[in-house]
C-alpha cells in the first residue's frame, strides 16, 4: 500500500513539475490570445485575408468588403455597397454577420437592403440586387425618405412578388413600421397602407400575394399582437388569437405564420421573459380562415419548430 501511495504521489509531483514548465512556455507566446473572431479581425487589418465559405452560396464581410460566392469560396464577387450602410440606423448588434432577413442569396437573386443617408433622418432605403449572380447590379429605391432604421426585412415569394418591411424613428418603445411591395421583381416598390400600430415590430411577412402579417411587441409583451391583411396591405386588422386560459400571458409573441396543408399555422413563443417549461416551449395555433382567427393546436418543443 505504501508503495502505491508513494508511486502515485511521485507521479503527481513529476507531472506537476512538467506541467509547470509546459505552462510557463505556453504562456510566453503569445501571452494574450483573443477569440477567433477578433483575431481574424485584427489580422485583416494588416493584410487581406483569405476568405472562407461554409456553403456553396455564401457571403463574406471580411477585409471591409461585402463579397459573395456561388462556388463555396473558390471565387468571390464584390457587392458595391459600403459595409457601414448595411448596418445603418438603430442597430447595435454583431456587425460580423449581415442582419437576419436584410438580404437574399439564392441562385437566381442576390439582394441586399441598405440605408443611404445621414443616419438619424431622411435616409433613402435601397435594395441592391443582381439577377446574374453578381455580374450586374441594379438599385431599386424602396423609399426616398425614411428615418433611422431599426427592423428591416426583405423577401420574395415568387419571381415578381416581393415585400420589404421596415421600422424606424424609435422613441422609447414606440416606432413607425411600414410595408412595401413589388409586383415587378423589385424594380418598383409601393407602400401599402399602414397598420397604424406603433409598438415595436417583431416580425412580419406575406404567405401569398394577398395575405400578410405583422407581429408586434418585443419588450415584456403580455399577449400576442398579430395584424393581418388579405388584400396585399390595403387594410390591416388585428387577428383574433384564442389563447386557452392556461396559456394566458404565457404564449405572448407571435412568430411569422406559414402555410401548412390546407390551413395556416403560427408558433407563439413565450417572449424574452418566458419561463414556462424552461421558456422555450411554443404554442402552435392554426387558422382555417386565412389568418383572421387562430385556435390553439398543441404545445411544441423548441427542436420541433426548426
Amino acid at each position, binding site marked *: 500500500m505504501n508503495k502505491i501511495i508513494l508511486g502515485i504521489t511521485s507521479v503527481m509531483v513529476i507531472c506537476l513539475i512538467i506541467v509547470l514548465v509546459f*505552462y510557463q512556455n505556453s504562456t510566453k507566446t503569445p501571452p494574450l490570445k483573443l477569440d477567433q473572431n477578433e483575431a481574424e479581425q485584427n489580422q485583416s487589418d494588416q493584410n487581406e485575408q483569405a476568405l472562407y465559405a461554409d456553403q456553396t452560396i455564401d457571403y463574406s464581410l471580411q477585409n471591409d468588403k461585402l463579397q459573395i460566392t456561388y462556388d463555396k469560396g473558390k471565387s468571390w464577387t464584390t457587392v458595391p455597397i459600403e459595409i457601414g450602410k448595411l448596418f445603418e440606423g438603430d442597430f447595435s448588434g454583431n456587425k460580423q454577420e449581415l442582419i437576419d432577413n436584410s438580404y437574399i442569396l439564392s441562385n437566381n437573386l442576390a439582394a441586399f437592403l441598405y440605408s443611404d443617408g445621414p443616419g438619424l433622418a431622411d435616409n433613402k432605403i435601397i435594395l441592391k440586387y443582381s439577377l446574374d449572380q453578381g455580374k450586374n447590379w441594379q438599385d431599386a429605391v424602396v423609399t426616398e425618405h425614411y428615418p433611422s432604421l431599426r427592423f428591416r426585412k426583405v423577401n420574395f415569394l415568387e419571381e415578381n412578388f416581393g415585400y420589404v418591411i421596415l421600422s424606424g424613428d424609435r422613441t422609447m418603445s414606440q416606432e413607425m413600421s411600414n410595408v412595401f411591395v413589388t409586383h415587378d421583381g423589385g424594380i418598383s416598390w409601393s407602400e401599402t397602407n399602414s397598420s397604424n400600430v406603433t409598438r415595436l415590430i417583431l416580425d412580419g411577412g406575406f404567405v401569398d400575394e394577398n395575405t400578410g402579417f405583422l407581429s408586434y411587441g418585443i419588450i415584456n409583451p403580455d399577449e400576442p399582437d398579430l395584424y393581418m391583411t388579405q388584400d396585399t396591405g390595403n387594410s390591416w386588422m388585428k387577428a383574433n388569437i384564442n389563447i386557452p386560459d392556461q396559456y394566458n400571458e404565457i404564449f405572448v409573441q407571435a412568430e411569422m405564420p406559414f402555410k401548412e396543408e390546407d390551413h395556416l399555422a403560427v408558433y407563439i413563443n413565450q*417572449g424574452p421573459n418566458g419561463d414556462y417549461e424552461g421558456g422555450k416551449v411554443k404554442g402552435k395555433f392554426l387558422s382555417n380562415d386565412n389568418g383572421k382567427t387562430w385556435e390553439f393546436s398543441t404545445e411544441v418543443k423548441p427542436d420541433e419548430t426548426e
Partner: protein
Amino acid sequence: MKQNKDKNRKIYGWIFFFISICFFCLQMGYLFMHNRFQVEYSDNRIFYVVNIFCVLCIGLGIYFLLALAKKTKLIGTGILVLFMIVNVGLLFYSNHQIKNIVSLSPDYKHVLSIKENTNTGDAVFFRTYFGILALPKERLPYATTEEFKVEWLANDVAAVTYKASDHSIHQYIGTFGDRGGGGYYYVGPSIYGHWKGNDTEVISNKEGISVLSNGKKETFDWDHIVQFGTLAVVLTANDQAVWTISLNENFEVHSAAAVPPTGEISLYKATMEKTEPIILNFKSSNL
C-alpha cells in the same frame, strides 16, 4: 489511545491525499482545456496557488499516512518545499508580466477579469465561467498603463476606468447577461426622457444625451455614444470617455404604450479619482 491517534492520522492522511488528487485533476483538466479551448484561469495566479495547495496536501497526506525514513522524509520535504518556493516566485513574477485585474460582483455571482500585458499595454477582457475559468472576449481598444479602477454599477455591470498610454481616460464596461433573455437592445433610446438625481440631470433625446452636472452642460451626439452589452453606454468626447450611463437592476421599459420607464439609471464619471455613481430617477418625457 494510541490506536485512536493512529486512526485519526490515517483519516487526515486520506483526506489530504484525496484533496491533493482533486487539485491534481483540476490542474490536468485545466491544462487540457487551456490547450484545446484557450481556457484560462480568471486570474493567472490561480495556477500557481493550485500547484502550491496540491503539493502541500501531498506532503501532509504522506506525513499522516506513511512512516518514512528520516533521509527519505528530508529529500521528499526538500522537493516539495522547493517546488512551492518556485511557484510562489512565479506567482509574483507572472503578475509583473501579465497583470490580472479581477473583481467580484457585489452579489458574488460574476467575476470581472482583465489581463494586461505590461510590456505592450495590451489588455483583454475575459468572460468568466464558474468564477475561476475564463475565455478571452475582447481587446480593450487603447494601450493601457497598468492603472485601472473597477466600480460595479450594478450586480451585472462593472465599469473599468483606465488610463491609456497617451494619458487619455477610457472606460470599458463589462456586462454580464441581459436580464431575462431579451435585454433592452438599445440603451440610449430606452432611456429617452429627462432623468434627475442629486444636482445632476440627464436628457436623452433624438440628438443624443446631455448631462447637466455642477452647472455644466455637456451634450454627446449619438456618434459619440458607445454601447456595451445591453446595459450601459459610454459618452465620449475627444476620443476619451466622459461619463458612463448604466441601467440599474430595477430599470424596466414598458412596451404596451407610451408609459415612461420605471426604475433608476446610474451616471458614473470617467476619472481615475475616487467617485461614486450618481443614481438618477425618471422625471418626465418632456425634453
